[in-house]
């Protein structure tokens, strides 16, 4: 085992490796055998009844292949957060199914669901949701400990990940001593600590300025290159545009599905106005 031990999706966590994309061999996560990481079938979630019925999520069918990054966009109130909570087992559908890594999860009991959530899903929220009284490193270690890792393993993984997201030098700081961008990077490290099947991020750049947004997007891009499955809910078009696929939600239903990447773009020349 190497000194730092932890490997996340084919990237070694050596110090100093953060300066460039190190093209190591791609280790495959056991749960990541190419296939569907996340599947929604006829997924619906309603609130209230009668006149007050709200169809927050309304008949969504979606397959997120392992290793893809997905963005879900749409105006405020269109059901993005609800959808993400259904994906991650934080909420239960009124109708339909959620499958994570080939396993149907919407019917699981509370305890089984909580266990699965810890191991298979990493959450990133707009307002970070870090524990104020724990240091950055402790925040990252906690989910590993809860999932049964030894304190030593948890510490090692946290150190590796904090290095990877570029806040190793803040490991012993409390969240209140960190900038918004640093807090979100700690939260991303925390989301990754159990090597989840899928990372679910709800408006991850909603509270960040443009420089910090840039950092988070770079990080997501690295995760994408490393094969991490990622679903990002956002109303920020620039965040959405970094995904492999952008789906639009309107009134709880999918309205559009755009595949990005590959050829067929206009070309930067046109964007810059040289071909007018």
């Amino acid at each position, binding site marked *: 085992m190497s000194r730092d031990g932890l490997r996340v999706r084919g990237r070694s966590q050596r110090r100093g490796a953060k300066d460039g994309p190190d093209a190591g061999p791609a280790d495959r996560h056991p749960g990541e055998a190419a296939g569907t990481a996340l599947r929604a079938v006829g997924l619906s979630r309603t609130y209230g009844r009668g006149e007050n019925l709200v169809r927050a999520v309304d008949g969504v069918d979606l397959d997120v292949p392992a290793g893809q990054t997905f963005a879900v966009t749409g105006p405020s109130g269109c059901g993005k957060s609800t959808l993400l909570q259904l994906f991650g087992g934080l909420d239960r559908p009124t109708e339909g199914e959620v499958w994570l890594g080939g396993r149907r999860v919407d019917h699981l009991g509370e305890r089984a669901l909580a266990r699965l959530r810890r191991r298979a899903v990493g959450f990133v929220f707009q307002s970070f949701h870090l524990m104020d009284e724990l240091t950055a490193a402790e925040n990252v270690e906690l989910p590993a400990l809860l999932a049964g890792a030894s304190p030593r393993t948890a510490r090692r993984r946290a150190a590796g990940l904090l290095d990877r997201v570029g806040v190793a030098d803040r490991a012993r700081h409390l969240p209140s001593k960190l900038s918004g961008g640093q807090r979100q990077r700690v939260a991303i490290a925390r989301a990754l600590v159990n090597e989840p099947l899928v990372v679910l991020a709800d408006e991850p750049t909603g509270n960040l300025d443009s420089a910090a947004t*840039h950092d988070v997007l770079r990080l997501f891009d690295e995760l994408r290159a490393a094969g991490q499955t990622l679903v990002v809910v956002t109303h920020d*078009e620039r965040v959405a545009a970094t995904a492999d696929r952008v789906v639009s939600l*309107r009134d709880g239903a999918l309205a559009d599905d*755009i595949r*990005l990447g590959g050829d067929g773009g206009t070309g930067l020349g046109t*964007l810059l106005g040289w071909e007018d």
Partner: protein
Amino acid sequence: MQDVVLALLAKEPSHGYDLRRRLAAALGPLGETLNAGQVYVTLTRLEKAGLVVQEREDAPVRGPRRKVYALTASGQERVAAWLAETTGPRADVTEFHLKLVAAAESGLADPLALVAARRRELIRNLAEAQRAALAHDANSEAGLLLEGVALRLQADLRWLEACERTWAARAPRGKGGGDG
């Protein structure tokens, strides 16, 4: 201007004065800079090009039968082509706006479909700019330029969201909720 005037004629033959009034309504304060002469000059050019013809109004609401302008077959073709063509990443806001107005008035295209198509195009463009931006230091000269390109595309996408809201609310069948 020619395309817009043609598109407004697609709904029904109109008098130059009505065209100017409709254009002014669509353009708001920007329309105040539009003088009657410009509309007539455009109509004359279109007539020379064989895209419109003058004919007598069939049944005036009141007053004498006025001369109205009507589309020829090739005028109709040109309107359809204008509505269908994609506008490119640096397209003018006003032109796209008038396209939506003309599409809705003429019934030749669904404004929401035009918005969706433009949105797809802009997101593709933004993805490209954003990928390039991420590959550059944000503080480098190149990074700064790419930031500007990305921000402008983002602004266009935000405006399209507003277009979608407004035209969805005006859609004849209403959008969203129940059976649509």
